């Protein structure tokens, strides 16, 4: 462990006047807020797993009556909202919000109070979603398509609670994005030009722009839904001049954009990890950064890929397919660059790299299947079958869970000063790999060969899908166990993990220049950034100055 650098001015040593939870709850520091988002997201990941297991338990055997249809629909709706709005997006934003300001050498964020309100809104949204269990949660599904979500068909307050919850959370995400974007534009360290931005911070920039576009779209749709439900509006009501398809367009813009958000996060984090653990800079950085922009724009423009069976013109269907298939180029280039950085490197196969590789692998399966789904006639056959469920889950579990866990293992030492248990990480990783394959490969088969439909509270015996569903349910349990192992590992390692030091992995970006955990003001001194690998420059110049060039930091690490 390195000696702690002497700060120029000691302001952090004074005892806190308030208890720690009060400090955390009232803090506007991006690291505290980021930690709240990440911890909240991981907590909701656990809840989402419980909900997924209840759903899979119901679908383990044909015509099961474990959950009533209404309970099943409520579980499904809550699972969807939890996984997307309370797990995936806050996890992604939490890491961006924690790490990106450190990576650009900022001492805080530009509009901290805005970020604080954002996190508060996320907490309120989460509370609203689960408070609905006091009366009736939504029964309208993962994406509550109008007019099922209208008051004429679901007159209880479930959909209102869903709309309030997702609306509050989304507003919070947009505010956090504004804060982070302002920070990224205005508070970069001297010399940190856009082209020198770490890929993860660049991913944060693109993602925040994306959120500024898609967030308000969903908020507009939710507002219309609320007016429809509570003030006799007719935005989505057929027969009074309303358009049920309008909801589909608006909501799918948001959901498709969110999909891209998760991919951008995963690729950004994987790029940092691959570069750090192969001991060399990412190949073709500029192409990777450009590809991220293309993914955000083109990917979101493909929203009608979800509407290929709706009454829209064939020209629009081909437009959606063109956008989806065009994604092959930027995503292919990024994956190519990630793998070719590893080829020719000297890999330290530690937990972050393992999870990063798992993320690439799972995303490749998910996106390969999504590619097939974007072909119009194929979608006519496979849309809304369990094949689509499996594709989406492979890609999003790959991006948000495997990618998220890679990021967690990578930045955990920075956040806590301790490393997460390595052997536990390995057990968890291989359990998760077995789980995701067991849980979703059978669903691919059930969807593509037997056309089992999604979201149904039961399936019938004799349709050839019973075995698939039983295996999928067992697989979901295995996947859940694997995920819980990592969550337990994180909780345990927070106090008991081995001390990590400030720069455990030999990463290239500036967050490793800060202490672990960083002081509230992040940096005592800011370096002049002269290259895309500022931390390596610092390490080199320290080694040069102390004429002790024989031991680069990485070789002192235990090698797996």
């Amino acid at each position: 462990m390195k000696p702690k650098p002497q700060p120029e001015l000691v302001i952090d040593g004074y005892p806190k006047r308030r208890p720690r939870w009060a400090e955390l709850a009232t803090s506007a520091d991006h690291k505290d807020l980021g930690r709240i988002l990440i911890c909240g997201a991981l907590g909701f990941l656990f809840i989402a797993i419980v909900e997924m297991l209840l759903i899979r338990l119901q679908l383990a055997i044909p015509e099961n009556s474990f959950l009533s249809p209404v309970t099943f629909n409520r579980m499904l709706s809550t699972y969807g909202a939890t996984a997307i709005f309370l797990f995936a997006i806050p996890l992604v934003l939490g890491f961006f919000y924690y790490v990106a300001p450190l990576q650009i050498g900022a001492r805080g964020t530009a509009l901290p109070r805005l970020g604080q309100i954002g996190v508060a809104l996320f907490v309120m949204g989460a509370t609203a979603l689960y408070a609905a269990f006091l009366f009736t949660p939504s029964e309208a599904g993962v994406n509550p398509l109008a007019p099922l979500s209208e008051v004429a068909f679901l007159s209880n307050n479930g959909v209102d609670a869903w709309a309030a919850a997702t609306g509050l959370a989304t507003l919070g995400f947009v505010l956090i994005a504004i804060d982070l974007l302002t920070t990224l534009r205005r508070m970069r360290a001297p010399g940190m030009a856009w082209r020198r931005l770490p890929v993860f911070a660049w991913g944060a920039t693109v993602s925040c722009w994306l959120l500024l576009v898609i967030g308000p779209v969903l908020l507009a749709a939710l507002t219309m839904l609320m007016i429809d439900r509570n003030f006799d509006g007719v935005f989505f009501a057929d027969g009074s001049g309303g358009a049920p398809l309008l909801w589909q367009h608006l909501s799918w813009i948001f959901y498709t954009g969110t999909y891209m958000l998760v991919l951008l996060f995963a690729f950004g984090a994987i790029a940092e990890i691959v570069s750090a653990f192969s001991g060399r800079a990412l190949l073709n950085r500029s192409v990777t950064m450009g590809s991220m922009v293309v993914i955000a724009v083109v990917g979101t423009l493909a929203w009608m890929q979800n509407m290929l069976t709706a009454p829209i013109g064939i020209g629009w269907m081909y437009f959606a397919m063109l956008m989806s298939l065009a994604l092959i180029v930027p995503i292919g280039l990024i994956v190519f660059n990630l793998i070719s950085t590893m080829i020719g490197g000297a890999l330290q196969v530690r937990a972050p790299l393992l999870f990063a590789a798992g993320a690439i692998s799972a995303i490749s399966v998910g996106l390969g299947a999504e590619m097939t789904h974007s072909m119009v006639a194929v979608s006519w056959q496979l849309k809304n079958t369990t094949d689509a469920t499996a594709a989406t889950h492979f890609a999003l579990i790959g991006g948000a869970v495997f990618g998220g866990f890679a990021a967690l293992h990578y930045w955990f030492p920075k956040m806590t000063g301790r490393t997460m248990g390595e052997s536990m990480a390995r057990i968890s990783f291989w359990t998760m790999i077995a789980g995701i394959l067991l849980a979703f490969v059978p669903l691919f088969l059930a969807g593509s060969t037997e056309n089992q439909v999604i979201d149904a509270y039961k399936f019938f015996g004799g349709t050839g899908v019973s075995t698939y569903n039983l295996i999928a349910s067992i697989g979901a349990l295995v996947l859940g166990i694997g995920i819980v192992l990592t969550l337990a590992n994180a909780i345990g390692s927070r106090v008991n993990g081995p001390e990590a030091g400030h720069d455990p992995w030999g990463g290239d970006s500036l967050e490793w220049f800060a202490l672990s955990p960083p002081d509230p003001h992040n940096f005592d001194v800011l370096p002049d950034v002269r290259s895309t690998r500022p931390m390596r420059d610092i390490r080199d110049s320290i080694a040069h100055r102390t004429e002790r060039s024989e031991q680069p930091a990485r070789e002192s690490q235990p090698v797996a």
Partner: protein
Amino acid sequence: MAPHSPGTDQIDTLLWIGFVAATIVVVAINVGLIYAIRRFRAARGAEPRPAGDNRRLQFRVGGALTVFAALLFILSVVYTNKARETPSTGDAGLAAAKSEPLTIKATGQQWLWRYDYPNGSFSYYKLVVPVDTAVKLELVSTDVVHTWTVPDLAGKRDAVPGKVNDVVFLARDEGTYAGDSATLSGQAYAAMRTEVEVVSADEYEAFVKQQKSDIEAAQERVVGLIESGDTP
């Protein structure tokens, strides 16, 4: 799925093309990944090679990916257009549907499918169509969004309130084909299934005639009961 119509033949072909393409992508990425992790470990003495941007290779990879995407796009458009073609009624088909397809209205309603035949008769749950005959289903909904899907005969389509969506298919073989609804429509969604019975043209004619007279008889009986004051 086992295709039993010209349209699903095309869809099936495209599905296989997509499956092969996806398999190529998945295998290429995962083999590269596993090779990289197994081969280039620092523990096995690998030294990091200096990283340099390789513009030419990048252009080549980008070009190859573009060609791949363009190929998939073109194939998809070709096969999708073939799958959309209105088939022409064959010799064994219904004579009345030679010039234009037999049009049947399919209404999705929570949680049943209703089929209205051209002669004014209707049926619930089960659709009866003549074999070797071009059939056009006009999908409408009276309440929420439903998706009509009978995978062996045609691609799925949404029934959206206020809109009419068409499905055209020609059933090649007689038999019974199971179908579902594929969009969450409320409590009994999973039980909202359907069935298409493909029969010979004569049997179809007989069925709709019988159905019409049955319905009329039932209506007359109800009217009679109301007039005689026997209603419960």
